[in-house]
């Protein structure tokens, strides 16, 4: 596997401009001759489809939801970063670039991150022009707020629904292109394989989720905008349908998978209430501005929080990180919560929870002020838990939220398969080992509106306008379609005893225990043994009811869980091979005497890229060395 990042020459601030000049263009009259398939309609997919349609390309976009407006980007709460420096507090493109590289614990590619920071301002301009109702101040200008990992206010927001408003903006732009005929939208459709010949993407195999029809579609380029894989843990803040299937199928066809072990565990989520739980709900990071995190000092203290006197409480973040206190970064706050719960000091029925207490803030500022700041979050908490957070402290616990790892892409966002592009959370490129708050929306839209539509032209132009697409009657399509149909039928024929969900839950438990907030060599090794056993059991004992020629929710889930059962093992292998702690990846063997993450820049200052070599073969680990020419490698400290 050849990994050439294709980073343009020149000083970092000129790379993107130079590259845009160097790339080939497609003549406007020829654009419609090129067919591009886009899988996924979240921020990255919808913005890419809309922009490619506006430019005149011939676009087909697929999503598994009933409407492109529902992709999980919609659930992002906090905001979107940009280097506008409207508040005049010293922000700049360089500072956003620097903060993002540092926040990622020096495991991202400098040139990509700089381009992201450069484009950030254009995103805000474009979204405002679309009518996205960002928060404004009384003078009618845009408001900003602060987020973790930055000392400037650069986050634009739309109440607690920034993701929704940005996605609706992209959805509306996409809708305009659908009406214009430049984009054909296919809802309730799931990509089940990518068709590759001689390491060039030729098209996709898609299953219509309503009729069950398996179809082949040829294209000149394929774009995956299929999101993250957090649902490998079963419980996460992801939507129920989020899955790794498209990315994993591409991996099995030759696309390198980079840093699969980099997962973000968000510290403030509502704890699990019982075995029935199907998903976890995030409570915004902003709550830690006024809430104090604590647990009882005594093990197994079952008293009500109000009965525990001040000197018997352990405000552990304030104790361990006096200068950042309750606003310690996400990875550190999450690990600290796990530590106190592992010691047996966790709260709530399950013992897996810590208090986020607003008592002092309410006494100092009054309930009215707290309600004005966080009222909607307090209401949401009460709706889910039936506890009043004005009277009792909230209970929170970390939960899987975002995956920094993804398919490897070069500077052009092309994977190791020619003509297969990967954008948004599905790729690995910009966040290194830890993503800063309000940067996911920025990356999805940068990729979709501004990067991909430019870089893909260079590839399409190189094919030539007389280029012919591979007919779907040819062998690579026929084989791929046959394989998909066989797999679907096999799932239905096993007729075993265990439900799909029971396998998914068991996999989730293995992953959470061994590849979650802290990882050890022995735990990962045991997971690498356990997962194949579970996978074998799945293929001999899963029970999938119903038929293949109808809407079949068990069958959909079974296919996704089958891929998670392979992918989980790859994650564990990646976590085992990375003998260091960096960002969201914490290996217990690699920590300082004070329990902090200990990076190993000598041996691991690279992206690990996995190559599939066969179902029963160990995948091969390649590396893309990361060079830091503009930001100096340093240790993060929050003491």
């Amino acid at each position: 596997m050849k990994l050439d990042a294709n980073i343009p020459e020149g000083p970092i601030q000129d790379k993107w401009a130079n590259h845009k000049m160097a790339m080939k263009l497609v003549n406007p009259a020829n654009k419609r001759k090129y067919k591009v398939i886009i899988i996924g309609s979240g921020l990255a997919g919808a913005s890419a489809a809309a922009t490619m349609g506006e430019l005149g390309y011939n676009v087909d976009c697929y999503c598994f939801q009933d409407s492109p407006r529902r992709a999980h980007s919609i659930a992002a709460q906090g905001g979107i970063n940009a280097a506008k420096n409207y508040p005049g507090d010293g922000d700049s493109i360089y500072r956003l670039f620097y903060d993002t590289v540092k926040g990622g614990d020096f495991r991202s590619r400098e040139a990509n991150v700089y381009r992201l920071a450069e484009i950030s301002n254009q995103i805000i301009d474009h979204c405002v022009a679309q009518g996205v109702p960002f928060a404004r101040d009384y003078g009618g200008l845009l408001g900003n707020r602060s987020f973790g990992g930055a000392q400037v206010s650069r986050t634009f927001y739309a109440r607690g629904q920034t993701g929704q408003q940005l996605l609706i903006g992209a959805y509306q732009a996409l809708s305009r292109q659908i009406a214009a005929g430049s984009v054909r939208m296919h809802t309730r459709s799931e990509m089940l394989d990518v068709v590759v010949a001689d390491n060039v993407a030729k098209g996709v195999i898609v299953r219509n989720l309503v009729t069950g029809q398996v179809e082949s579609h040829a294209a000149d380029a394929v774009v995956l905008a299929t999101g993250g894989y957090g649902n490998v843990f079963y419980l996460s803040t992801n939507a129920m349908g989020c899955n790794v299937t498209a990315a994993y199928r591409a991996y099995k066809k030759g696309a390198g998978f980079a840093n699969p072990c980099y997962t973000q565990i968000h510290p403030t989520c509502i704890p699990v209430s019982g075995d029935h739980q199907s998903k976890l709900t995030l409570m915004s990071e902003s709550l830690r501005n006024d809430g104090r995190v604590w647990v009882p000092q005594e093990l197994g203290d079952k008293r009500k929080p109000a009965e525990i006197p001040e000197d018997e409480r352990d405000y552990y973040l304030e104790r361990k990180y006096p200068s950042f206190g309750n606003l310690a970064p996400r990875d550190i706050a999450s690990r600290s919560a796990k530590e106190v719960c592992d010691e047996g000091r966790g709260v709530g029925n399950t013992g897996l929870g810590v208090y986020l207490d607003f008592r002092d803030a309410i006494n100092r500022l009054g309930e009215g002020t707290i309600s004005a700041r966080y009222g909607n979050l307090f209401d949401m908490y009460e709706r889910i838990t039936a506890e009043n957070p004005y009277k009792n402290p909230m209970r929170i616990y970390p939960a899987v939220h975002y995956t920094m790892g993804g398919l490897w892409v070069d500077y052009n966002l092309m994977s190791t398969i020619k003509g297969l592009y990967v954008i948004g959370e599905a790729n690995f490129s910009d966040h290194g080992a830890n993503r800063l708050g309000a940067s996911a929306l920025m990356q999805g839209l940068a990729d979709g509106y501004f990067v991909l539509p430019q870089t893909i032209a260079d590839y399409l132009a190189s094919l030539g306008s007389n280029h012919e697409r591979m007919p779907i009657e040819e062998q690579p399509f026929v084989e791929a379609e046959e394989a998909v149909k066989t797999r679907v039928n096999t799932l239905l024929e096993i007729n075993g005893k265990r439900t799909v969900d029971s396998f998914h839950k068991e996999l989730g438990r293995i992953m959470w225990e061994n590849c979650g907030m802290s990882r050890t060599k022995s735990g990962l090794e045991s997971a690498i043994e356990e997962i194949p056993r579970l996978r074998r059991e799945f293929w001999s004992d899963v029970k999938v009811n119903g038929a293949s020629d109808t809407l079949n929710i068990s069958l959909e889930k079974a296919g996704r869980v089958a891929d998670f059962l392979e992918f989980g093992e790859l994650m564990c292998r990646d976590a085992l091979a990375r003998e260091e702690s960096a960002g969201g990846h914490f290996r217990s063997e690699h920590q300082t005497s004070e329990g902090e993450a200990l990076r190993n820049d000598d041996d691991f200052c690279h992206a690990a890229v996995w190559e599939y070599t066969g179902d029963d073969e160990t995948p091969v680990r390649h590396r893309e060395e990361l060079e830091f020419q503009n930001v100096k490698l340093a240790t993060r400290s929050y003491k």
Partner: protein
Amino acid sequence: MATYKVKIWRQSGPNANGHMERHIVKGIDGDMSFLEMLDHLNEDLEEQGKEPVAFDHDCREGICGACSLVINGQSHGPETTTTCQLHMRSFEANNISEIDIEPFRARAFPIIKDCVVDRSGFDRIIQSGGFVSVNTGNAPDANANAVPKTDADTAFDAAACIGCGACVAACKNASAMLFVSAKVSHLAHLPQGDAERRERVQSMVNTMDEQGFGSCTNYGECEAACPKSISTDNIATLNREFIRSKIGPTT
């Protein structure tokens, strides 16, 4: 742990006859969400070798708008929220042990299977004009135009619509006026939406009619059912925009 007598709509396909199917659902904790109760029922059905009940859901945090169930006769059930944010304690507290579950019913929302309906009519309404025609490129600086905060807030209140269709299901005419008015109102309150306001409102209203949604007769059931509290004030705005587009000045 409570037990519920559930009657739920089963329909094998778009053209099949449907019926209410009875189930006893046991072991339900008050902390379970309504959809987790249905997961529990489906897990039971799967273990018995039966097909689970199909229903739409995705984010399970009240924002994607996929939920589309009528519960005991009300869109999204007895509380003002999406189905995924409704919890079983709400039934426990009111001593309700019988639950009837049906899909959103409207001519413009044909049933695909069980409780899954086709809401693509909403997408076609947006495609007919629910956008600002601006290509990705070099838009003017985001702060080039100040937008008064009250306008921005009013636009936001309308833009909060999640497109679930509870308004249509609750309306005895199956009207989509609240949905259409929310988008028209969102864009009409912002300078960016001004240039196309005449064409937008006419085109969206025409498409709404073509898609088979009914007329508005001001009952206000839509607002009562809306999980995002979209106000019927938007319908007044829509009517004003529509009349203005027909008789007002052309510039």
